[in-house]
């Protein structure tokens, strides 16, 4: 079960990253693909979002190294389990 607050927090960080790039707002949800989909984000943006999330949540789901995730829901699940 994914915590709605994690999804909400990730959506907020993604929204800021998109706005910072001067791109138009996108509809975001647990199914939204973070990289390689329709969002105007690159690897560095995604890395920055993860750092901001770690900072805000006080959790590090990647302490043992890189883990694959694809959607906002996947990332929320990683943070919830950490």
């Amino acid at each position, binding site marked *: 079960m994914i915590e709605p607050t994690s999804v909400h927090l990730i959506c907020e960080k993604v929204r800021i990253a998109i706005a910072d790039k001067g791109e138009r707002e996108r509809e975001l949800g647990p199914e939204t693909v973070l*990289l390689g*989909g329709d969002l105007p984000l*690159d*690897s560095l943006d*995604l*890395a920055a979002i993860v*750092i901001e999330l770690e900072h805000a949540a006080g959790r590090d789901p990647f302490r043992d190294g*890189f883990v694959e*995730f694809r959607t906002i829901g996947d990332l929320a699940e990683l943070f919830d389990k950490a």
Partner: protein
Amino acid sequence: MLLSSAIRSDPQRTVLITDCGPISCADLDARADQILQHADFRSASNCLVHSSQPADVVTALLICERAQRPLYIAHSYLPSDHLEAVIREQGIDLVLGSGLNCRRVAGPPTSHFHGFQVCLMTSGTTGLPKIARHSLKALTGRIRTHSERREPSRWLLTYPASSFAGLQVVLTAVLSGDTLACPEDHSIKTLVRCAGNVGVTHISGTPTFWRGVLLALGGTSLPGLRQITIGGEVVDQTTLDRLRVRFPEARITHIYASTEAGAVFAVSDGRAGFPSDWLRAPFDDVELDIREGLLWVRTPRRMLGYVSTHQAIGDAGTWLCTGDRIRVESDRTYFTGRSDQIINVGGSKVWPDDVETVIRAVQGVVDCRVSGVASPISGKVLVAEVVIAPEMAADGIRRTIISQCRAKLASFQVPRVIRTVPEITLAPSGKKQTEGGL
């Protein structure tokens, strides 16, 4: 005439696949002939190519090889004031821009170097870029030629053609009888889609690029992929393991190279780092040494020297300090970071000073510090800590900082995380405490 011979040996071969369609060897040859006849080129002596198009870079190499003149390759993202300063200082008298449009500039009558040499810029800059001068022989020292290979490969270009790593891929495609797909847009989405559409067999990219591929692929795959080459940043065991699981059929190689040292060595045993034996015995004409924790190399493929500083660095037999810290753990040696303040962001080097200068110029910014924070996705992410004047609105300044950085810096130099802090902590030495490094 290594490059010209390779191009002329098979005129019908598609050498580049661009957004505008395929480009054959004959196309490149014809374009090179055209420029060679151009009055501006004939009367020039010192050329610089400044284009994001790999076809322009290859053609510029072909014409300078034929005319036996030096070629300067400038990054397309180089700020215009830096470009103009390089043109002035190096006595450039012809700039080949996008589409190889010739621009004559008033250079001094004599050039610094004679014969065909390739002058490459390092990725980041503090002030003017450092320019490393290479012979074609050194640049192509690790590339197998057409006759030594059996099956032609299809490569994907993930680096700028102007970078050392990008040029290695471009030269490999030209000399090995291969085809190189080079989409203009370097986003992961476009690169992955292009790899699938073209059916690429070989991809060279940074660990950041490869982790991006793993994240972007989802349920799809790249069935034709035979060779995964990784370089530009330290590669960790987890990334190697993930790639092995995802691409069980592909050979995975990580390369140690730099603009100055050239292509030093390649590791293909699936383990991070390199065998400690290599520190003791020369291999592939390369000698490695560890001095005060840093890796030193002696290699015939190193640069001839820097052109920008006219710094004498000795002959090809001289040892070169890489600035990379290493740690020996019995049979394996690992890279652990940099000795200097350089931050490696997705394979590109960033000097924090360059970024801090831009941020400090923003009205309302009192002080700032730029550092690299380790990321599981990209090696390092640039984080800017900013102290702002009390009367200023943090959000407005944040936006201005981002827009100023975007306007004045290359994409990899733009901090992705900006934090407002009450003060910048100083180290006991009075210097800013920085994380830096890899």
